């Protein structure tokens, strides 16, 4: 109440009419009411009706809203800001109805995709009344905020009263209000009690994923406005027809505790602004900003995201890092799209039992970059680009963050123990069915050990029922009879085609592969005969969880598969947990055309094996490849009832084995 009263009084000091009212000894509610009315009258001449004609009705399966929306006048000569909301459907015409009720044809000059705003230009005969900027330092959470639109009448503003609920929302791009926001006043101002504009109402919200995919939050007590000052800052660029996009820098950072962990770089996307500027893995980011003069101190992930949020593509970016105890400053220009990432590939297997600091080559895939560079079994990898490893993870990180287009320098020690350095031209993961054969030395050794020891604690092998209570689904695992705790196994979690599965048939089909190459195959059955429901993705996660706790699993060899109706669940599981599943096998997939595909990133560069003769699959494969993923495509259909046909499974199994390769 204090805030409200003080703000109100402040408003009255500025407005002679209200002071006069106050002296008539009116109760607070009536004073507030007079302030609402005065503010609305003051601001309404800067608000216009925006209308579109024609254009798609449905964009991304959502009905686009018809009927007028609002806009706010920025300059006297006809620059008007509105929300992008009406333009998703590519309208044939845009018109603006001025407070004088005169209708004008408008040009869409530029859009701000980061804030869901659009800039319109109309030709004017008479100067318009631009919105007056509200003074941001004076804002207080809890003060009145009026959402003004031209929903009903072009000359009279419609007013919804609320308060300023919060600042710094949507990664510091928006302020929040509880005034009633709807598509009809999107583009209109959020005004203070002086009729001065705090922000422009927009459909921006935390749920925005891509253009057109705007989750609607209106009428729910939460609405957002982009501060007018931020709109005016970008006006000169937008007036030149430049669209605004969120700026990307191209780094990943360590850990997932938003509020308690410093931002330590875990990966720099090759070819990104960050890598061009010279940022490196292990750099700790301590300050960022649009320039070295306007830095904000960064202590945790959340602060970093808030500092990045308002920065646009094409705009300057300054960053200060701590590198080995020294402060270093870097600058770059943020980009709209990062270069698409593809996982680099060496083509060698590492002995899992070898020293993590000195990984030993177990096998070299014929024709691979490693083979071409002369690396053979028994070599020790000592460094990449001059940097040694602390553990297996560092090795993976070095490789994952290398640019597959550029060569790397690898420090090696040959079988005779002689050190040298070789240049390796990296490639991306193979997309063809490689015929290669190899019996890992470690496996052979483990077999001997097992025979010799015999005393290892016995784990259940064969067809093992996976305990998942409280659901209808049945799940089982095929654990090879030669399972040994000493050898980390691969894990393939399969969502079967809907309906009952013949467990013994499955075991017969997979057991030879599982035994020979040390894999565990876990299979989930749908709870209903006729199909899967999306929630059942969780079953796969629980199976994965149970098996990794019960058996020794190699985290480089965890894959998920889906047969026919089960394929969508496999895809969703992989999309949700890209760091867990390094491979996805989709057999005769049935996927919706519009399914979302996240671009590939280091450690999220799942490789795919997709089989099926249906032509619709090709379109999906093309999209997957475009997003940077390696796909092995086979046109064969797999008869899910005749899984025993080994020739059909053999290519899948070769692909599974390749997952292990660096």
């Amino acid at each position, binding site marked *: 109440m204090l805030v409200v009263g003080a703000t109100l009084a402040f408003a009255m000091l500025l407005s002679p009419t209200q002071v006069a009212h106050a002296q008539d000894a009116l109760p607070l509610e009536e004073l507030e009411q007079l302030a609402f009315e005065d503010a609305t009258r003051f601001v309404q001449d800067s608000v216009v009706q925006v209308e579109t004609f024609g254009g798609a009705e449905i964009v991304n399966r959502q009905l686009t809203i018809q009927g007028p929306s609002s806009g706010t006048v920025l300059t006297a000569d006809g620059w008007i800001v509105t929300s992008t909301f009406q333009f998703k459907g590519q309208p044939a015409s845009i*018109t603006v109805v001025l407070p004088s009720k005169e209708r004008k044809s408008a040009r869409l000059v530029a859009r701000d995709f980061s804030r869901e705003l659009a800039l319109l230009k109309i030709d004017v005969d008479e100067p318009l009344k631009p919105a007056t900027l509200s003074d941001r330092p004076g804002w207080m959470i809890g003060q009145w905020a009026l959402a003004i639109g031209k929903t009903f009448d072009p000359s009279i503003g419609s007013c919804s009263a609320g308060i300023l609920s919060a600042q710094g929302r949507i990664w510091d791009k928006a302020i929040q209000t509880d005034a009633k926001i709807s598509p009809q006043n999107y583009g209109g101002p959020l005004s203070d009690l002086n009729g001065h504009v705090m922000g422009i109402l927009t459909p921006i919200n935390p749920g925005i994923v891509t253009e057109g995919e705007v989750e609607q939050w209106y009428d729910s007590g939460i609405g957002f406005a982009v501060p007018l000052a931020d709109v005016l800052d970008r006006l000169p660029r937008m007036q030149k027809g430049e669209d605004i996009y969120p700026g990307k820098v191209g780094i990943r950072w360590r850990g997932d505790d938003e509020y308690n962990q410093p931002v330590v770089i875990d990966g720099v996307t090759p070819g990104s602004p960050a890598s061009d500027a010279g940022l490196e893995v292990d750099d700790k980011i301590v300050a960022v900003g649009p320039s070295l003069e306007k830095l904000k101190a960064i202590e945790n992930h959340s602060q970093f995201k808030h500092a990045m949020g308002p920065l646009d593509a094409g705009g300057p970016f300054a960053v200060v890092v701590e590198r080995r105890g020294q402060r270093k400053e870097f600058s770059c220009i943020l980009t709209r799209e990062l270069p698409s990432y593809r996982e680099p590939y060496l083509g060698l297997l590492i002995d899992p039992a070898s020293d993590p600091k000195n990984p030993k080559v177990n096998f070299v895939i014929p024709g691979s970059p490693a083979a071409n560079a002369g690396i053979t079994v028994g070599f020790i990898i000592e460094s990449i680009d001059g940097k040694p490893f602390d553990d297996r993870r560092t090795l993976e990180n070095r490789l994952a963050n290398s640019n597959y287009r550029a060569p790397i320098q690898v420090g090696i020690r040959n079988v005779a123990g002689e050190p040298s350095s070789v240049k390796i031209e990296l490639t991306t993961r193979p997309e063809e069915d490689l015929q290669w054969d190899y019996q890992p030395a470690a496996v052979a050794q483990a077999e001997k050990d097992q025979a010799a020891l015999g005393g290892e604690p016995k784990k259940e092998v064969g067809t093992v029922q996976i305990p998942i209570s409280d659901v209808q689904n049945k799940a089982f695992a095929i654990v090879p009879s030669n399972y040994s705790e000493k050898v980390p196994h691969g894990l393939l979690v399969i969502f079967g085609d809907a309906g009952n599965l013949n467990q013994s048939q499955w075991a017969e089909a997979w057991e030879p592969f599982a035994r020979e190459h040390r894999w565990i195959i876990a299979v989930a059955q749908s709870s209903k005969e006729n199909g899967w429901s999306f929630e059942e993705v969780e079953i796969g996660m629980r199976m994965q969880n149970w098996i990794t706790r019960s058996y020794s699993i190699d985290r480089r060899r965890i894959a998920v598969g889906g047969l026919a109706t089960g394929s969508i669940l496999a895809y969703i599981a992989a999309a949700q947990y890209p760091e867990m599943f390094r491979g996805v096998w989709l057999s005769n997939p049935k996927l919706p055309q519009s399914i979302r595909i996240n671009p590939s990133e280091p450690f999220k560069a799942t490789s795919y094996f997709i089989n099926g003769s249906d032509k619709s699959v090709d379109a999906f494969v093309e999209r997957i490849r475009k997003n940077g993923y390696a796909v092995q495509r086979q046109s064969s259909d797999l008869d899910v009832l005749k899984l025993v046909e080994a020739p059909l499974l053999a290519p899948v199994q070769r692909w599974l084995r390749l997952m292990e390769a660096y």
Partner: protein
Amino acid sequence: MMQRRTLLVMMILACIFGQTLRADDTPRAEPSKGLEDLFQNAQRSVVKLYGAGGLKGLESYQSGVVIGDGNTILTSWSTVLDVDKVRVVTYDGRRLDAEVIGVDPECELALLKIEDAKLPGFQLDAKIQARPGQRVFSITNLFGIAAGNEACSYQKGVVMAISNLQSKFVGLRSVYRGKVIVVDAMTNNPGAAGGALIDLRGRLLGVIGKELRDEQSGIWLNYSIPIDVVAASVDRILSGKTRAASATLAMAKNPHKPAELGLVFIPNVIPKTPAFIDRVRKDSLAEKAGIQSNDLILLINEQRVDSQKALDQILQTIERGDSFQLLIQRGLELVRVQIRP
């Protein structure tokens, strides 16, 4: 200046301490104690009504306001009233039978009579005008939440606009097409129709209308029928001079057809193909009016032409002998042309 500063300080203090702090020689500016009384009093003039319904999503209850002498109830004309006796439950829990004495089909309002109830009634003062920005309260029995002597519900809001249902909302299926008060609170819920919209002084500003959704935008409209319209409607009902509701988009007996006007549009292949003119036939009405190929029709008689389908629908309502106006976009120009048969 002194006085202003005093006022400021007093207001802040008043806000902090509420009613505990008060000086006789300063203006009253505390949150008014009046509101509490107002809520108590206005509440007595709103009744809960029960009648027919309960099937197919139609509620069997709604709200009503007591007017004038305290024995007359004004409410929304709906299927709830399709019974011999409408059950009225007053603020103090009395259960009374009411009879419908007249309806106004145009405004969808009805008057009910109860015997000797002596309830406090609202005055119908046609001079009271709602204004955008004005603070309002609704009093309704939304969702039938109150029963017996339980109080009807208050909702607070601000007047968003005074508008006309006819002009702006083509997607609305409402019989009433006149002036409305639009508010920013969710007032128009099941059972709320017929309730009261009051101002800060407890005066009746309007009667809550039926639930209404704009089918084009999917947005629910929260509106009341303003007091001047209500007062005129009550007069008509009492004097027996009500009119039938006029059909909103009357079909013409012999309407215009695009082909006969000489207009050839681009192929209509998508659901919302814009009304782009491909060519204009020689010596046609369209050519005489100055329409050119590549023109885009935006409005016909101020009605939105969103697509070729919409254009056909609007032309259906115009008699072939009548002239009409088009708003056309030509390049970046907006041009008005008149078609004169």
